């Protein structure tokens, strides 16, 4: 059992002149759902991509269950990007086969059950699905993995309210005490009840990090209300 599912130490990422992240330090422990909250452009996606191994840090370190991002960490990480990442020319059964092939922790049974909920047939082509359905399919595949770290980048952004409820419910039902979950979003009000911990980012820096309930108790208001106050332009 690893001590921290995700650990960032003074993590920085710069693109030439532009600094996307600077000095970010926090950790996600097993069994905790951590929210990565902040306005658009605050570096949430950059942070998640660094943890997923799709970017390399400019400074500092990031590690997944003690190992830096690489093939070993990717086997433990279930990453759901904020865009469609499945090849559109595939069928549903192809995507199942892909996940089953490369990820030993993928549960076909779980995925099949979720797909049945979504009324998706194995022979359906991805190109014939709406964007919302594709996002739900991607979520189903990612959440069917028994990973140590779940990285969900804007899972409910750009989705209708009914789909949001389904997505949040799926996330909760697949919660595991061995796994840590990092959920990034700018729709704080929707997810704040889900979070154990909350990390607030602004312009690439951590503004606040700690238990969600502590913040509520301390400030006497919800995370969303506090966020609007503090981050008001």
């Amino acid at each position, binding site marked *: 059992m690893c001590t921290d599912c995700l650990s960032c130490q003074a993590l920085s990422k710069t693109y030439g002149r532009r600094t996307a992240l600077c000095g970010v330090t926090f950790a996600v422990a097993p069994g905790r759902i951590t929210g990565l909250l902040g306005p658009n452009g605050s570096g949430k996606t950059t942070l998640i991509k660094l943890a997923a191994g799709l970017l390399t840090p400019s400074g500092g370190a990031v590690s997944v269950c003690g190992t830096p991002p690489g093939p070993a960490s990717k086997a433990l990480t279930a990453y759901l990007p904020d865009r469609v990442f499945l*090849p559109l020319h595939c069928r549903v059964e192809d995507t199942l086969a892909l996940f089953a092939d490369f990820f030993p922790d993928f549960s076909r049974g779980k995925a099949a059950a979720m797909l049945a909920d979504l009324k998706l047939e194995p022979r359906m082509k991805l190109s014939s699905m709406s964007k919302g359905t594709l996002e739900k399919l991607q979520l189903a595949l990612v959440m069917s993995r028994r990973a140590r770290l779940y990285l969900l980048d804007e899972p409910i952004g750009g989705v209708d309210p009914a789909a949001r409820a389904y997505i949040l419910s799926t996330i909760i039902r697949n919660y595991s005490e061995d796994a840590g979950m990092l959920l990034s979003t700018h729709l704080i009000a929707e997810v704040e009840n889900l979070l154990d911990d909350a990390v607030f980012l602004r312009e690439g820096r951590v503004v606040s990090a700690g238990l969600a309930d502590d913040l509520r108790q301390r400030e006497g208001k919800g995370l969303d209300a506090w966020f609007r106050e503090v981050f008001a332009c």
Partner: protein
Amino acid sequence: MLKLLKWELRQAGRSLLPLAGAYLAIACVTAGMIALNRRWFVLEQDTAAASMSLSLRTAASPVLGAASVVLFAALVLGAMALTAATVIVNVQRFYRMLGQEGYLAFSLPVTAAAHIGAKLLCAVLCTVLAVAAALAGVWIILLGAGAAFSLPGVPADMAAWLAAGGLASIASGYLTAYLACAIGMGRGRNRLAASLLAFTALVVLGQLALLGLGLALARTGFFRITLLPWMVHAANGGAGLPGWIMALTCCVPLAAGTVCFVLTRWLLARRLNLP
């Protein structure tokens, strides 16, 4: 990496197999028509000069004859197009992996080297098959024309070197393209332009390096000592080339390819930048 290779071949096959199939189908149709028209086509082989000439006797059925000629021309173009398409499709797949498709590829638990290796093997395999298909098309035509086809006599070891050299060159070419894509990675809107520029630069660099190496060797009198006797041998009607030249046709592309592979791997592992 084997799993990756399986997926790569499946994906590449999706686009290329139909093309190859169409090409071979045209070849068969043309061969069939030629066979029907055997009276109108005569294939003459001039063995002494090792050349072939195709002559058309006065056609009693101009329609079939003309159609055969047209199809034959289409076949030749098709052979070139098939090879070109294979190369383009394979390079494109690598290029796309450094774009949107990378979100899936790089979340898989495989090393950068495995990605490059799988794509390279798939590309080389596809290219070899495409060339084979192209030649098969020609062979089918000749079969239809009722001619026997024999390659000029090539000593076995030279053939092996030629084949190895050919494979090495193909691989090296792809790896240069891959490196160019990796260099162009992450430049946003200018990714394609940067990659093309990098490819041109790499090719020029490679040629200059080769030229430089050759000149340097020439100055030391290397060629005078080693090549001269063989040139004399060839002038006297001897066949074949010295073994080390054959080895060079393998080693030079292999070396260049290895350099490209190592650099690409470094870029993908340490400087990955997906848009």
